[in-house]
């Protein structure tokens, strides 16, 4: 499986359509800090962001901050400028103050499909989460529908001042999503947790919990582990044990200043089998990230 993923590796792929593996679906999370008009007005930044998206089948984006509704449509147009066929799902503006954020899923329609009716914000009647997560159910299109891997994605961005409380609330969200549909046991919580695995104590309430990113930094300054993909390993046995942090500096040859213009976070990703796997499997966790260039 890792050999097939290697088709993504050549850096020269920038100018050509990205060739994705037939035997893996690549799911990423990317906090694009203050993604709004200012960022979209910088062609060099948009180009990097578009190249990032094209490497993956689905990108869960956090921190869209704009009064305008056309930021993401214009961005997806830029992504598709090379002939790609991405589409998006965007959530409502969320936040307790007048400063709001939106969650977005951008996905490759040739590789995955979404049940649009399933998309929504997880209810938070007790107001435990500053920006309650956006959920949507996807299914791979690489395999016949009856065999295709389907899964919930739960897109989140925690409040950095209430991380332990929000991780506890997200654990309840995860458990709630696991029982949201009797025919869906795969839940992948992904986003900017503002916390790394040592702070994931609440997640231990999820039976068999695992996460992709471990022992690697995820912010652009390479000092913190904030972003991750969390899932229950017995249920989501489709996880291939392959993950990575797409380092903006080294991937695109950017000095730190320019990489920070793109975002203060690097994208993180994990690879999953495109077929639904019925029973639990034992796949070892990768202790080292894989590099996508």
């Amino acid at each position, binding site marked *: 499986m890792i050999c097939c993923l290697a088709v993504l590796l050549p850096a020269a792929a920038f100018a050509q359509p990205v060739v994705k593996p037939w035997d893996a679906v690549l799911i990423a999370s990317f906090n694009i800090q*203050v993604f709004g008009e*200012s960022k979209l007005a910088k062609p060099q930044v948009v180009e990097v962001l578009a190249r990032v998206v094209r490497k993956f089948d689905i990108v869960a984006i956090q*921190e869209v901050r704009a009064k305008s509704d056309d930021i993401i449509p214009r961005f997806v147009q830029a992504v598709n400028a090379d002939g790609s066929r991405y589409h998006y799902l965007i959530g409502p503006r969320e936040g*307790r103050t007048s400063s709001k954020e939106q969650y977005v899923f951008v996905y490759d329609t040739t590789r995955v499909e979404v049940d649009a009716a399933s998309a929504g914000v997880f209810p938070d009647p007790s107001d435990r989460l500053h920006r309650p997560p956006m959920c949507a159910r996807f299914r791979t299109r690489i395999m016949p529908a009856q065999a295709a891997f389907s899964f919930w994605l739960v897109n989140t961005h925690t409040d950095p001042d209430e991380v332990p409380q929000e991780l506890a609330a997200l654990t309840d969200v995860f458990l709630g999503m696991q029982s949201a549909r009797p025919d869906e046991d795969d839940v992948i919580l992904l986003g900017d947790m503002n916390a790394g695995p040592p702070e994931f104590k609440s997640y231990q309430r999820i039976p068999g919990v695992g996460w992709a990113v471990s022992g690697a930094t995820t912010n652009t300054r390479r000092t913190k582990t904030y972003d991750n993909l969390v899932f229950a390993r017995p249920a989501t046995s489709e996880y291939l044990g392959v993950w990575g942090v797409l380092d903006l500096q080294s991937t695109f040859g950017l000095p730190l*200043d320019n990489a920070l213009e793109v975002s203060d976070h690097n994208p993180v990703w994990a690879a999953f089998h495109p077929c639904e796997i019925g029973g639990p499997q034992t796949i070892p966790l990768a202790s080292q990230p894989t590099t996508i260039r």
Partner: protein
Amino acid sequence: MTDSSPAEIHDLARQLTAADPAVRRAAAERLCRSGPAAAAAALPLVRACGDADEGVREQAVAALEELGAPPSEALAGLIEAVAAADPLVAYWAITLLGRSGEAAAAGVTALARQLAPGTDPAVAQRAAWALGRIGSAARAAAGALREAASSSDPRLARLAQEALSAVGE
């Protein structure tokens, strides 16, 4: 802008009050990319949350989310800003005081006032949270916290209850 010098941060902070919104926006954006070094501009960034320009406000908020606790010399100005008429300014002043913990004890009275009924809900909730972070030094706010703990706003009630425990009540 990756490892900004104190002089550069000072200069950017000054530009946050420029007449030209484009200059203010650029300064806020550069501070947003400055990481923890932007803490030296904590108070000007809080004030920038009340800017008339949306772009300035959004960059200021993003910078404040990441900069951690403010320097001690900013505390007096932040305490003053707790009572700001603009809820976003008050919210971020309160947040930075909460991050300062016990060092923000001088702000307890100002914070307790924001628990009063009629206060912007996000501001009141953050004030309860900040008092909890200040801990036992916020005991003088116990009365206001008890009242807030019976609020019909479930989040305010919960945070006030947690703060009461933190102050030792």
